[in-house]
């Protein structure tokens, strides 16, 4: 990973927030990609928050006062995106799917961040046999197909199927196990590098305890690149969740709405030309992942001065201000 360049300290605190500062740095195509990503992310977050308000029906509702819903009905005025083979409203299920997705992403990323960073810090700073074992273990897990590992984990946690909370936690923990090695590797590598820095040595000389060195001196410095990994892992969490759901290892359809599961059901519809049951949950996955990826990718490019691009106007301004500064 690249070392992020710190935004100039002249700006206010607000301006130096990760996404805001990137937005200010960007221009042209890069800004377009970042903005597009942010818009997609906002749509995703909003639809997950507002799903109960926006959705005309419940995610597991197949009838209302006027009787049972039609099955596999094409999109019309009442069912905007049609209904599934079990009579659920596709539009409502897709909206509620965002809710499930966001819970799983948050739970998975927070858990893996916490455990991964902790292990990386300890392992990198203390070294020795613990470090060696952790590295081999993390590499072994890292090299393994993540979906398979998630499958094994979800068997362990819930024997496959479960309730809403259980299902979300099972999916999140399965994904966590896959992610821990990634955070571990990044943080450990940073800690190994920082360990030799003078400020760490001086802390040691003063007599700071290993814990103090790790948590006050190393933690902040070693975790600078993590926001980036966060967006990337969020996409992978979402794709793994969908993959698990597609294989029938997700959350039961009556407990929560999940895009991958809906796509699994839609597979047999597709052979008879029914497109709406699969298209909408599928597009929801694609657009959400795209949004997160665009944000992560743009932030990464902007953090790397070699990839950062200025608009001609801005480049001129920079050279002018540099000349003005030099002539003073």
């Amino acid at each position: 990973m690249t070392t992020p360049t710190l935004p100039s300290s002249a700006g206010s605190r607000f301006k130096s927030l990760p996404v805001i500062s990137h937005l200010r740095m960007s221009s042209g195509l890069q800004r377009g990609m970042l903005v597009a990503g942010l818009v997609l992310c906002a749509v995703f977050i909003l639809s997950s928050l507002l799903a109960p308000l926006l959705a005309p029906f419940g995610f597991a509702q197949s009838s209302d006062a006027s009787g049972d819903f039609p099955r596999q009905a094409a999109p019309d005025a009442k069912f905007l995106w049609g209904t599934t083979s079990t009579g659920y409203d596709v539009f409502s299920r897709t909206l509620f799917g965002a809710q499930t997705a966001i819970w799983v992403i948050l739970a998975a990323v927070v858990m893996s961040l916490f455990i991964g960073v902790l292990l990386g810090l300890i392992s990198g700073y203390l070294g020795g046999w613990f470090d060696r074992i952790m590295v081999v273990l993390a590499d072994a897990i890292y090299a393994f197909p993540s979906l398979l590992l998630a499958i094994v984990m979800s068997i362990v946690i819930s024997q496959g199927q479960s309730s809403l909370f259980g299902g979300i936690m099972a999916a999140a923990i399965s994904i966590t196990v896959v992610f821990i090695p990634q955070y571990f590797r990044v943080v450990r590598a940073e800690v190994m590098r920082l360990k030799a820095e003078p400020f760490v040595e001086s802390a040691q000389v003063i007599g700071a305890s290993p814990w103090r060195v790790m948590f006050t001196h190393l933690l902040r410095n070693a975790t600078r690149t993590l926001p980036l990994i966060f967006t990337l892992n969020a996409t992978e969490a979402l794709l793994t969740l969908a993959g698990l759901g597609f294989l029938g290892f997700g959350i039961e359809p009556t407990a929560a709405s999940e895009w991958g599961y809906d796509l699994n059901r839609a597979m047999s519809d597709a052979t008879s030309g029914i497109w709406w049951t699969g298209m909408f949950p599928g597009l929801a996955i694609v657009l959400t992942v795209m949004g997160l990826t665009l944000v992560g990718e743009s932030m990464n490019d902007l953090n790397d001065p070699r990839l950062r691009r200025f608009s001609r106007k801005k480049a001129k301004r920079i050279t002018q201000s540099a000349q003005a500064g030099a002539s003073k």
Partner: protein
Amino acid sequence: MTITSPPGQEVSPIAAPKAKSQGGGFLRYLITRFLLIIPTVFILITVVFFLMRVTGDPITAAMGGRLTPDQLAARIHEAGYDRPMLIQYFEYLGQIFTGDLGRTLSDNRAVTEVLTTYGAATLELAINAVIVALLVGIPLGLVAAKFRDRYPDAILRILAILGYATPVFFAGLILKLVFGVWLGWLPISGRADWETELTLTGLQSPSGIYWLDALRSGNMEAFWNVAMHALLPALALGLLTGGVFLRLVRTNAIGTLGREYVEAGRSRGVSEFRLTTKHAYRPALIPIITVMGLQIAMLLGGAVLTETTFEWSGLGFKLAEYLTARDFVAVQGIVVLLAIIVAVTNFIVDVVAALIDPRVRY
């Protein structure tokens, strides 16, 4: 590293221990790298074994509810699942060494037989997908690098992100809908028509890779049939990987296009086309080979989903079946085999990378 996704693409997935001396050279690297396979595979087998057993014995999982408690206990005792966990573990390790992975619970076949029967189909799918990925990723990556930050580049990068963002099963769904159902051009499931399948499996010592078998027997009709069936799954899985390749080639070619020797070539009057395809292209390939190792893991994960989507009867398809049947002996066998495949491919990839680029060898 400027490639961001999938995350953490460091050059080598397995950190080789740094040799103390500068000497030793290639052989030494080869041996240390080879020895590193053993702990990797061993750890994965151990982790999978204990994880699968934490929740209970496989027989209760598979047969629970269908047998009376007495029958269940008898079956468990018969299979030895009531013995201490550690003894079972060492026995399992011993079995693996002798190449015996037990028998499946749901259809009572030897796990090794399942692996050899369906492994070939997965291999075929993986090969097809890699071909698609290379055909798509390398030329388009070069185009994107050549037109850096202009419209072709922007469009290609967005397409690459789209490729990454689309789950294989959704790509499969769309391909099935468009080419199978609406246009009716291509078959949407299976590896071949049943007649062709019968002909091909009836051959003497079939390799199990259908197009290879069809070519060897000179049966062009069968080959055509197999190719038609293979196209959509290969596209679905290959485009996913192709997107990753595109981004890699792009970043690396941008790096090499800026080098002095390219500039020198340009001043000598070498054509732009040749500069891109020859001068900048070769050095940009090295990272692809190393990242390919990581892609194998992703490819196998994707294969599980692709096979389920297209009812392609390979390991992934069977894995999903056995998962639904709660047949954890079979699941464990397949997972162990995939772990070994991934470890060995990573080894091969690292060795190839070391052969190409001496700096890797410490």
